[in-house]
């Protein structure tokens, strides 16, 4: 069972939030934003749900929590279902502010989200290209890392798992490639897209192919703890509970 509100938080922070990483890692995304002359911001405000502001410039993209009062384009959304519909492409977003800048939404923003979809939901053929395979894995890593916290904070069963996690940092990563920190405080989780300075627990995948297979659900993490391809250490109860939430990430991102 999944719920619409949790999915909206995942869609906002984990899926749209991955635009930050796409713009940093992907040449095609860099090309799309290269024509932005001055920074432009788009805010999504979901009633009884998440709200965030994405700011784009020719140098990249940044997501901030909440609606930035100075945003250029504001898109209020009536509820979580409608927002999930926007992400699925079934509902058309209607801005209430920045109507003169709607061209950005129609061209640049749409091109970026289309590219994100291409990267996150690739064809088998596309994945045969090593560079694209790497890009897909790294972007998925960021999406999953952020989705973990959203599920731990919003989903009923995820909240149970989060309630059993001690305070502190859990570092997850792909060796020598990419790291993220899940910071837990009073059972609330936030994801920081960088390594922790003082982790209390660590879970690390040995390489890109293993991480990709884990995210695709074609291999099981327990098997790879056994053969040493996944390294765990520190407060393993923290890793255990994150893994239980990870099990639910696949459910939401399927």
């Amino acid at each position: 069972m999944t719920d619409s509100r949790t999915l909206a938080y995942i869609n906002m922070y984990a899926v749209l939030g991955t635009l930050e990483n796409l713009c940093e890692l992907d040449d095609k995304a860099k090309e799309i934003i290269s024509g932005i002359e001055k920074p432009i911001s788009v805010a999504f405000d979901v009633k009884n749900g998440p709200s965030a502001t994405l700011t784009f410039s020719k140098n990249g993209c940044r997501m901030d929590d909440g609606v930035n009062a100075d945003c250029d384009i504001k898109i209020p959304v009536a509820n979580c279902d409608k927002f999930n519909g926007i992400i699925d492409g079934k509902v058309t977003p209607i801005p209430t502010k920045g109507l003169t800048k709607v061209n950005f939404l129609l061209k640049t923003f749409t091109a970026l989200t289309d590219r994100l979809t291409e990267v996150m939901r690739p064809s088998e053929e596309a994945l045969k290209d090593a560079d694209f395979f790497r890009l897909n894995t790294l972007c998925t890593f960021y999406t999953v890392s952020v989705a973990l916290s959203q599920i731990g904070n919003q989903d009923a069963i995820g909240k149970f798992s989060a309630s059993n996690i001690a305070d502190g940092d859990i570092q997850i990563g792909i060796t020598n490639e990419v790291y993220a920190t899940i910071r837990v405080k009073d059972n609330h989780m936030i994801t920081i897209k960088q390594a922790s300075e003082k982790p209390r627990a660590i879970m690390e995948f040995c390489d890109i192919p293993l991480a990709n297979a884990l995210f695709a659900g074609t291999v099981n993490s327990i098997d790879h703890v056994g053969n040493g391809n996944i390294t765990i250490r520190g407060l393993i109860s923290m890793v255990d509970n994150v893994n239980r939430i990870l099990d639910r990430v696949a459910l939401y991102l399927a």
Partner: protein
Amino acid sequence: MSKFPLYDTTKSREMFNRASQVIPGGIYGHLGPAEGQWIPVNRWPSFSEKAQGSYFWDVDGNKYIDYMCAYGPNVLGYNDPDVDAAALAQLKLGNCTTAPGKVMVECAETLVDTVACADWAFFCKNGSDTTTLATMAARAHTHKKKIIFLKYYYHGDFPWAQKIDYPGITPEDVANNVIVPWFDLDALQKAYDDNNGDIAGLIAQPYDHGNFKDNEVASKEYWQAVRKWCDDHGVVLIIDDVRAGFRLDLAGSDHFYGFKADLICFCKALANGYNMSALCGGEHMKATVSGITYTGSYWMSAVPFAACIACINKMKALDTPTMFRRLGQMVTDGFKKAGAEHGFDLRVSGEPALFYLRIANDDNLMLHQEWVAECVNRGLFITSHHNHFINASLTEDDIKLSIDIAEDAFAAVAKRHPELRG
């Protein structure tokens, strides 16, 4: 230079990889790399070749002094001659037969004569079988639905005893579980009131020996208060003595803490590795249990009963609980002293017979995991997350060797962490 050379575990890795081809997870459950916390995996033995007394040998031929005792069943020493002789003699007479062997009655009588709260014994195979029967009995006896658990509980892996976020578990599987903190009588009353009194039983281990945390022993006063509360509210008091049973007190851990359980679950130390478990209880629960539909293909096999009788008689003759307390104290005192000499703050908690260890210099167990890996890789088999077990074949020479290895391992870790010296 290390006094104890590091073991080569190449064949263990090969055997594990072979196992992974045909067994999910290679070694699943508590003996495997994930639940068993092999950190890092290449320092651990995977499969054993043989065992004797307090030792086992892995497939590389490395010898380990074993403080996990197969996570409890090894209570007298691997291959105890008296228990094995009784088992083999029964094997020649018959084992899994249509009419159960008469030794089943003798085994039940032995338990009734040994366990303070027992007027009867019902036999199964694993701890989970008995905790499940106990909760069914509580419900059948009271016609109520919910069961109170104490936080950090572990009562086996059957769906009702798992948690809502575990793979394969539905919310309905655990809908009747009410979890309260240890040592909090007010929380018991609140749980009872919040559930409109629909509480059939309270299931608990005799003290808080949860994993990944310092263990916390109970007091007689606490348990006597819980006993009274259960009596006042018509709640069946179930003691899960699967892990601690017979290591604290041959009359049951409830007897050790000065109260009488309504139902008590035994398994690990019951028959020195022969596979059986038992639910025991008071006369007032006997008719209820008689009426429950519950059986298994191998539950009345005779060989484990013969082993159980021999095991209990030998534990009585040796007064193993007193021995375990003394040996547990001796080995942990030695570990603490060895650790302190190298700047480690090794904390020991729980009952000495089931001691739990944690290096407290950091807040994330990483130093502790390093030390445990160095110990294991030198032949001292301990764990970083679970309580340990003493067995009756352990000698003072074994303990001296254990402390020497522990000291060597502390030295190796200290060398990598000069900051420990300040």
